[in-house]
C-alpha cells in the first residue's frame, strides 16, 4: 500500500514522536526521544509503544534510520538514529493544517 503524504493520517502519538525527532536534530535515538516527549508533554511513554511507533513510522517512510558505530557504554551495541524524511515532513504539515483548521473558531470557547 502506497502512502500519499498529503492524505495520510498521523496518529496523535506518531505526531508527537515525529515532532520530538525534529526537535532533537542529530541526536535522535530512542532514549532522548522518549525523554524529550516525557519532558514536553509531561506524560509517561512506554518503551514498547515508542519502539512500535518508530517501526511503524519507518515503514510508512516518514522516518529514516541509520545505525551508529558500536559503543562500549551500550555493551558494544549500536544506536539507531532517526531522521524525519520529506514524506514525514509533509505528513506533519498536513496534520498541522487539518488541526489548525479544526481549531479555527473554537479557541475562545476553550479559554474560560
Amino acid at each position, binding site marked *: 500500500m502506497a502512502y500519499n503524504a498529503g492524505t495520510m493520517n498521523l496518529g496523535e502519538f506518531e505526531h508527537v514522536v515525529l515532532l520530538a525527532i525534529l526537535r532533537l536534530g542529530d541526536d535522535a535515538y530512542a532514549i532522548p526521544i522518549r525523554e524529550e516527549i516525557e519532558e514536553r508533554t509531561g506524560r509517561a511513554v512506554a*518503551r514498547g509503544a515508542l519502539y512500535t511507533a518508530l517501526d511503524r513510522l519507518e515503514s510508512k517512510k516518514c522516518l529514516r534510520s541509520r545505525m551508529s558505530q558500536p559503543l562500549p*557504554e551500550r555493551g558494544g551495541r549500536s544506536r539507531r538514529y532517526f531522521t524525519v524524511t520529506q514524506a514525514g515532513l509533509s505528513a506533519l504539515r498536513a496534520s498541522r493544517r487539518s488541526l489548525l483548521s479544526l481549531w479555527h473558531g473554537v479557541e475562545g470557547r476553550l479559554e474560560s
Partner: protein
Amino acid sequence: MTRRNCEAPPRLAERLLAAVLGSGDWAESILGDLHEEYAARAAVASHRAAIWYYLVALSLIGRTLLLRARVARTPSVHVGPTPPRGDSLMRTLGLETRHAWRSIATRPVLSATIVITVGLGLGANAAVFSMIDALVLRPYTLRDVDRVALLFYDRPNNIDRQDSVSAADFIDIKRQSDVFERLSVFEWWTANLVGIDEPENVLGFKVSADFFATLGVEPAIGRGFRAEEETVGRDQRVVLGQALWQRRFGGDPGIIGRAIEIDGAPHEVVGVMPGGFDFPMGAQLWAPQAFTPDQATNRRSTFLTVIGRLADGKSLDDATAQMKVIGERLTREHPDTNRDRVMQVYTLAQGMGDMGAGPILAMWQASAAFVLLIACANVASLLLARGVERQREMAVRVAMGASRVRVVRELLIESGLLSLAAIPAALAVAWASLKLIVAYMPPTIARFVAGWNEMDVDPRLIAFTSALAIVTALVFGLVPAIQASRPRLTETLKEGGRSATAGAARLRLRRGLVIAEIALALPLLVAAGLSVITVHRFLNGPQGFNPDGVLTMRLMLPEVKYPTEESRTQFASAAVDRLLAMPGVTAAAAANVIPAITSNWGRNFEIDGQPIANPLDRPDVDYRVVTDGHFDALGIPLIQGRGFTAGDRADTQPVAIVSQAMARRYWPDKEPIGARIRFSEGEPWLTVVGVCGDVIHNWFARRNYPTAYRPFAQGPTRGMALVVRTTGDPNALAGPSRAAVRSVDSAQPVYEVASMRENVKIRTVGLQYVGGVMFAFGGLALVLAVIGIYGVMAYMVTQRTHEIGVRMALGATRRDVIRLTVRQTVSITAIGVAVGTTLAILLGRLIEAGLFGLTSTDPRLVAGLAILLALVALSAGYLPARRAATLDPSQALRQS
C-alpha cells in the same frame, strides 16, 4: 555525557529479552538502549537498576509476544519490531498466548482466585528463599568473599564445636603457611567510650594490622593500622565505624589524629571505615591487636578468630590440606595443650553463619513448599471444574481438527499466564513478610546476624520466583489440561453435557486433590502447634529463677582503672549498695554471668581426692562469681547448706555453692557439703557450703547444666552484670540504676539495661520466629484446604442437582439428602486425616530436630489438631449439603 560502562545489566533478563527480540538492527538498538539506561541508573543505585531492568525487560517481552500474535492473525499488516517471518512455531505460540489471555479475561473471578491462591503460595516460598539467600548463601557482601577463609579448631568432644585459636599457635601458623596472601586475627573487645555525653559501651574488636586488607576494604578517611602498631605501648590507636563516627562525633573529619578516651586511656583515631562496613558482628570500633610476651607464648588460652585471604592460585582445599599438616605438627610438638585440636578451614559464610539457621530455614522452605502444593491442589481442582464447563468448547475444537497436543498446550499456556500474573502478588507477599520479619527482630540481636539487613526483594528473588512460577504452572495445570483435552465427542456435542457420569473421572480426581490438601495441611498444623507450644513454654515455663520484677544491666571495668582484685570488689559492693538504696528495691547483686544473657563462662575443675592429671580431661561446669544477694535477687532457691554472706571475703576461707545438677552428677551418693573443689593448680581449694536450685541459662545449650558459684570477693571479674529486684515495675528503675552506677564511677558506662523478662524474650527470639512463621504456614494451609473442600462439595452439589431433584420427588427427605452429600465429605476427610496423621508424625521428627530436640510430638496435639481439621472440613462440606436439602424438587428438575 559520561555514562559508566562497567555495569552490565542482569544477564538472565538480557538473555531472555534477546531471545524474544531475535536478531537484527531492532534487537540490537533496543538492547543497546536498555544497556545504556541501565548503566546510568546503576551509577546511582545498582540494586534498583537491576529491578528496573527486569521489569522493563518483562514488559517488552510481553509486548513483543502480543504484537507477534497480532501479526500472526493478520499477517497483511506489518506491526512491531522484526516479526519472526518463517518462524511458524513462535507465531503459533503467540496466537495461542492471545487465545489464552482472552479465555482468562472472560472469567475474571475464577482467574483472580487462582492468581491470589498461587500468589500466596509463591510468596511464602519467595520470602523463605530470600532469607536463605541473605543469611545462608550470601551473608557477606565483601569483595571476593569466597577467597576469605576462617580457621578454627574443631574439638570433637566439645559442645561449642568451633574453638578459637591461641596466640602462640597463630604466630606459628602464620610463619609456616604460604596458602594465604594475608592472615590476620580478631578478638572481641567490649570498649567503654568516655567523653562528650554519657559514657557508652561500644562493640569493638582487636584486630591484626592487615585485618582490613585481608577483607579487601579500606578506611573511607584516614588510614588503617601499621605493622608497628601491633606492639604493646604503640597500640593505642582506633579506627571508627561510619555509624559511630556520625552518631558520636557528628561526622567531623577533624577527628583524625585526635585522641578519644576508651577504657580509661587515650586512643588516637587514625581512620573511619566506609558506611555499611561493620565486620564482624556489627563492630563499630577497631584497635590493633598487640600480644603481650605472655600471650605470645601461651597455647592454652584460645581467644583469637583467624581470618585469611587465600593467595592467588590457592584453593580452599589447598588451605585445608596445609592447615592439617601444620595442625598435626603443633599437636606433636605441644601434646599437652593441642592434643584434641583439629585445625579446620571454613568459608566466611560457614564459619560465621549461625549453625542453627540452616536446619530451621530448611524446615521453613519445606513447609512453604507444602503450602504451595496445597495451593496447586486447589487451583488444579478449580481448573478441573472449569474443564467441565469448557467440554463443549474443547469438543468443537477437536471436531474441527485441532490436535490434542495443541489443546493441551493452549491450556498449559493459560496456566502459565495465570502463574506469571501471580508473580507480582507473590513479590508483594514476600516483601511484606520480610518487612514484618525484619521489624520484629530486636536490634541487639539483628546486628549479630550477618546479612540480616540484606533481606529484600532483589533480582535474584525475582528470578527465583519466576522460575518457581513456571514449575508451579506445570504442577497445577498439566492434569486438568490433559483431562479437558479428552472430551467424549459425540456425547458432549449431542447432549450439551447433562450426563452425570461424564464428570465422574474429574470428580474422582478433585476428591483426590482435596484428600491431598487435608493430608498436607495436617502436618503443617501440627508443626505450627508444636512450635507455638514450645515458644510458650520457653517464655513462660519454669526457668529455675524468677524473672519477674528484675532489672539487669552489664558493664565492663577497664583494666587500666581497676587493675587489682580489691578495686573490682570495691566497685561491685559500692554499686550494689547504691542500687539497694533505691526505693522499692528488695535485693541487688553483681555477678560475672547471669542467666539469659548472651555470654557464658565455663571452667574445668577437679574434686579433692580424685586427681586428674591432664587439665583437658577435667570435667567442666558453668562458673559463676556472685555477691551475696545473688540468690535472693534472682529468686534461685537454696536447697541445702548456707548461702554467701558479707563475711565471705578475700581473706576468709574460700567457699563454693554447687547447683543441684552438679551435686547429683559428681556426688551421686554422697554429701557434697564439705567436699572440696579446685579450678586450676594455682588456685585454692574451695569448700562446698551449699546446694542451690538449677537454672536454665540458655534454652538451647545450657539447661540445668552443672554450675559452681563462688563469692564475688574471692574471684572478682572485670566484666559483670548487675541485677536489681523490685516490688514495682523493673523498667522504671532503668534510669535511677544508671545514675546509681554513675555515682560510683562517672566514666563507667552500662549496657544492655533491660528487664529479665525482656532478656528471656530476646534469648528465645529465634524460636519465636520459628513459631510465628510455622503458625503462619499452618494457618495458610488450613484456609486453603477449607476453600478446596468447600469448592469441591459445592460443585458436586451443583452437578447432582438433577439427581437430588429426582430423589426428593421420589420421597427422599431433607435428612436423606444431607446424609447423601455429607457422606462424601466424611469419606474424603477421613482418608485425608488418616494420611495426614502419618505425615504429621514423620514431619514431627523433622521439627524435633529443627527445634534442637526441645520438644516432642505429643500424640494429644496430633489428635486434637486432626479433630479440629476434620470438624472444619466437615462444616465446609455441610454448607453445600444444606443448600442441596433446601432445594425445591420441581425447580431442581426444571433447572437441569
